[in-house]
């Protein structure tokens, strides 16, 4: 629930209902009015009976319509990575917390786009129904505070009851990904940063003091004897080639917000390209550093890019061996 919304407004929107006569309902309503007029005019008891029965049906329908949509909650969850501009697989959870089943409901997200309405034919009392939804998000970033429109024509299809419900859950929309080409640079034509790291099973890398929890088999006993305190041997990990991307978020580094968005999209696209080729990558933003070569790292990097905003301060110097958005070009004509 958004914090800038007053409690009264929240309550109003949570329980706000709107009713609308359907086309058939309008005809029924006209029929009821007509029958009522004829009954009063003629004084026919059977017509009064029909008239009162139809009115009762209308009132009964109203009660059932209200009961049908009470205690219904909607939550949204991503079933896959949500990438700006691409249809994303989402899951809508319709939870019926009440003791009355939910019939013939339609759920439509109110996100400003033309989202298709999802049909929920039946949700039994105190149960949840999951519905898949394909949604194309037009902006990157964290999406919260969505509202959904829940409507139903239960029981007779003559009155459509409609309520607005707050959608629980949040989405992180990754920046737009397009085909890109990294401009060649360097002696070997690559922006690769080779570095040695401890922690592998390669050659000797260094010695460091023994700490509780270290593998006792790695204690160098000769050094222990010489220095009087335990040291463990660290061996070198395999050489790893890593493409380091750098994105400056200082406002002064960009001509305008659109240029920043294009820059983010370029970096996100290049990161994805590196992941797809099986290479290692690293992403450096002010205050954020993510590296790796697996999908989880890619997701962390994309989340960082999704949530990146322009900030104040001076542009930072570009790290050595890093790739910036200037060195990434969109491939024309590619999707």
């Amino acid at each position: 629930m958004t914090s800038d919304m007053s409690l009264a407004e929240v309550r109003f929107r949570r329980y706000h209902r709107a009713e609308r006569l359907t086309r058939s309902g309008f005809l029924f309503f006209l029929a009821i009015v007509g029958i009522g007029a004829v009954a009063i005019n003629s004084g026919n008891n059977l017509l009064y009976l029909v008239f009162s029965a139809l009115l009762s049906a209308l009132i009964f329908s109203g009660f059932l319509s209200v009961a049908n949509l009470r205690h219904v909650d909607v939550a949204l969850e991503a079933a896959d990575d949500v990438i700006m501009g691409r249809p994303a697989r989402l899951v809508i959870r319709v939870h019926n917390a009440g003791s009355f089943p939910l019939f013939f409901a339609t759920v439509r997200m109110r996100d400003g786009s033309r989202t298709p309405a999802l049909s929920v034919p039946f949700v039994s009392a105190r149960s949840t129904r999951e519905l898949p939804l394909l949604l194309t998000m037009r902006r990157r970033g964290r999406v919260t505070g969505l509202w959904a429109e829940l409507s139903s024509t239960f029981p007779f299809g003559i009155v459509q009851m409609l309520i607005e419900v707050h959608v629980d859950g949040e989405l992180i929309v990754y920046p737009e990904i397009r085909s890109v080409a990294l401009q060649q640079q360097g002696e070997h034509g690559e922006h690769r940063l080779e570095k040695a790291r401890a922690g592998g099973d390669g050659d000797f890398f260094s010695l460091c003091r023994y700490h509780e929890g270290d593998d006792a088999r790695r204690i160098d006993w000769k050094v222990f004897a010489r220095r009087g305190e335990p040291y463990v041997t660290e061996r070198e990990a395999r050489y790893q080639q890593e493409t380091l991307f750098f994105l400056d978020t200082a406002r002064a580094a960009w001509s305008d917000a659109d240029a920043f968005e294009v820059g983010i999209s370029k970096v996100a696209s290049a990161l994805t390209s590196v992941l797809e080729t099986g290479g290692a990558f690293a992403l450096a933003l002010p205050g954020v550093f993510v590296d790796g070569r697996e999908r989880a790292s890619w997701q962390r990097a994309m989340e960082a890019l999704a949530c990146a905003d322009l900030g104040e301060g001076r542009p930072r110097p570009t790290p050595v061996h890093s790739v910036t958005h200037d060195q990434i070009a969109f491939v024309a004509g590619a999707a």
Partner: protein
Amino acid sequence: MRGSLDIRRVLAFILGLTACGFLGIVEPWYLLYGAAFLLALPISGRVRGRWARRVVEALPLAWFLVLVVLGKPLFALLGQAMLAAMACRFVLTEGTHDYQGLVLIAVFVTVLSAAGSISVAFGLLLLAEFLVATLLLIMAQFEGPSPGLGGASTGQLWSLRSSRSCSPSACLSRSRGGP
């Protein structure tokens, strides 16, 4: 659904018979219109082709004009025209609106009957009609074909509707590929 009867069609058929019953209270020979519903039952919802549908749609109007030419009284004119309209609508029934239209015509037939009878049978038929119309209006809101009476129960109807959309777990497992 060619091999079995749709629950909604059966309810619409019973509603048609009830309408015939209402007018049958006033003029018993109107019960013969029940035969039209009986004949319409096997072909209900199966009339394809634009011209075939137009012919069926034009039948009530043609029948009404024939009755006008024959100089029938107003009650007979309206009653028979409405029963003919109901039978033809029953033949052409496809979606929710068609069933709602059927119920609306049935209500008009009831009103017409109320103008010409003071029988206890009217009350019994009214109860039957309200019961059938209520069920029909609820069942009519299922889009697409519903299971037939031959092999499926209402419980299976719910499960059929629940399993129509793809399972999100399946979507989830499918989406664990590359970005």
